[in-house]
């Protein structure tokens, strides 16, 4: 176990620095990527989060939104060229038993899926890392890489609506929405944070820990919604939208844990310098149990005034799901063989069964602004999907059949990212190219992704 002492913390480091960035979102549309992620049309984040936009007429002509956008995954071609699919199960890069195993590379693929081609890879920190070791002394100096150690809670998460089939009658919509909520969070304990971030020497008889929590829940929601213009005409008008959801939860699992290790009386005095321990509480309601239930809603407003439009939408207001048949287990682990006082002890035992628990879907919102003058459209949006706010600013200039695009965004790491690109439209088809800087890798420097997509109008 001793070899994993520092490794444990560095695992946290690896995930921590990359995870917030990954939550910037994975776009598959090169047009949007070329504008820094902003939605200038009446689609994308705007339509997803603002129910009023269901009533706003679609743009026409060259400003029209495509009916279908197909990403051209050049990154996957590169990926499968490097890692043949027939040998993926034995690929040395992903096999821990291989001398060529590279967990950092594998982690990057998870946090930054190789859908598009990486024009510029983000360099990983190249400074020296120094370890000081004595009989009762352990210190790690990560150098510049210590800046990547997350000081606050970090994690991954999303609240997704996969499908929403239904029908509309005069603005009233009846549908059944499917929903999925996932979150995973980590928080370094103070001692571990100081050890990794501030190079504070490890103390004997001290606990170093990471707090973790995670949830996965999914279900469907019969929905009654309305969207319509409440004032004005198609040129200038105000649109309102709302939806009432009756959430039915098919299943969920939640985990909260506290894991780490305790240093011995003398850190390197015995055969094992640390004693691992951990505890946690799991609670779950499997599919097949009684369905969870809850009520929540969405509201939105959009104001269209000629070339200018403003919108604001909020989702999952008050969406608390009550799960009537939940099982709770407590888990505990402590390796007493290290202290010489017993054998490894690990167990998971029922804590409570058939109990009622509650979960809450995160409230998400979007605020958007777009202005079209001649052949130029400028737009901005502010999106919060429950795990931080992302700001996008971008625009598009159409020159005949050619479009030039540019944009900037502020991601959840509070870093500026830049997008640029263009496209050519030939009749009902356009081929688009977009470049986007991102900070989804184990680095403080940006990488550049080149996205390509084909849109059909």
């Amino acid at each position, binding site marked *: *176990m001793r070899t*994993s*002492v520092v*490794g444990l913390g560095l695992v946290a480091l690896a995930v921590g620095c990359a995870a917030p960035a990954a939550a910037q979102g994975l776009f598959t549309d090169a047009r949007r990527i070329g504008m820094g992620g902003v939605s200038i049309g009446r689609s994308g984040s705007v339509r997803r989060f603002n129910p009023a936009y269901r009533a706003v007429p679609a743009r026409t002509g060259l400003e029209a939104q495509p009916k279908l956008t197909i990403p051209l995954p050049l990154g996957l071609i590169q990926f499968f060229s490097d890692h043949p699919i027939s040998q993926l199960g034995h690929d040395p890069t992903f096999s821990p038993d291989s*001398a060529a195993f590279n967990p950092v590379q594998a982690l990057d693929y998870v946090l930054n899926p190789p859908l598009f081609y990486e024009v510029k890879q983000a360099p*990983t920190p190249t400074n*020296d890392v120094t370890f000081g070791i004595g009989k009762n*002394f352990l210190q790690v100096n990560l150098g510049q*890489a210590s800046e990547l150690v997350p000081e606050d809670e970090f994690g991954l998460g999303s609240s997704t609506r996969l499908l929403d089939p239904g029908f509309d009658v005069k603005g009233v919509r009846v549908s059944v929405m499917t929903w999925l909520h996932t979150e995973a969070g980590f928080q370094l304990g103070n001692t571990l944070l100081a050890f990794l971030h501030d190079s504070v020497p490890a103390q004997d008889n001290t606990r170093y820990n990471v707090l973790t929590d995670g949830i996965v829940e999914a279900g469907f929601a019969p929905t009654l919604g309305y969207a319509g213009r409440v004032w004005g005409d198609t040129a200038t008008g105000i649109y309102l939208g709302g939806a009432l959801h009756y959430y039915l939860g098919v299943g969920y699992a939640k985990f909260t844990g506290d894991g780490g290790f305790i240093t011995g009386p003398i850190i390197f005095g015995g055969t094992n310098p640390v004693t691992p321990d951990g505890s946690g509480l799991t609670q779950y309601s499997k599919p097949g149990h009684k369905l969870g239930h809850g009520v929540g809603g969405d509201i939105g407003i959009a104001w269209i005034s000629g070339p200018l439009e403003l919108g604001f939408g909020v989702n999952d207001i008050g969406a608390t799901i009550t799960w009537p048949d939940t099982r709770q287990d407590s888990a505990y682990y402590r390796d007493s063989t290290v202290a010489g006082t017993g054998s490894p002890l690990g167990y998971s035992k029922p804590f409570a069964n058939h109990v009622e628990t509650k979960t809450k879907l995160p409230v998400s919102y979007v605020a958007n602004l777009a202005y079209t003058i001649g052949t130029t459209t400028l737009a901005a949006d502010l999106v919060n999907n429950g795990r931080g706010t992302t700001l996008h600013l971008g625009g598009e200039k159409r020159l005949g059949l050619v479009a030039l695009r540019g944009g900037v965004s502020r991601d959840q790491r509070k870093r500026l990212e830049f997008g640029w690109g263009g496209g050519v439209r030939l009749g009902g088809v356009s081929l688009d190219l977009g470049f986007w800087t991102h900070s989804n890798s184990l680095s403080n420097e940006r990488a550049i992704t080149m996205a390509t997509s084909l849109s059909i109008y």
Partner: protein
Amino acid sequence: MNAKCFGVALLVALAVGCGEGRAIFNVDVHSFLFGTGRDTVPYLVPASTTLDTSSVQHINLPGAGSSIVDTVHAIGGVTFLNASGLGTIRFQIYVAADSLGTYNASALAVSVPAPPAGPAPVPGPPVGLDADFSNAVNSVFTQSDLWVRLVAQVSAAAGLPMQGKMVLDSLRLRIVIRDKIF
């Protein structure tokens, strides 16, 4: 690769695996010996004889999986307290992954001559150590178990037997890991 190695493998990967940075382990070997009595090597060597006397110490390291050790540099010093006899003394360090291995000739990491020893002055001048270890022993430092044998190689001149002790004053190892780890 077991779970333990995975942790350190990831650690070292973060440190150097994907870049050109190095992982540097500064190990205070003396701290493991101090207070155990093993930092002192007493010797008693008959006249006209060469004899090794030594002490062996186990040291825990974090381990570095399949890493490549570039260099191991030692800085330290010993003092010889020669009570009687004349001759020459060498200070030697052997390292291996187990205690028996430290008795193999191939485990010799460094050998430092001391000034010719005599009964006076007592103690003799300190013998400084500032040298790279033999590359042949580099791989040992990727292990989590390191055994170190401190040797006083004493060659007694004709006449009286040499008697005294070698005291380790300090010993620090700087282990540099470089190159791609995985």
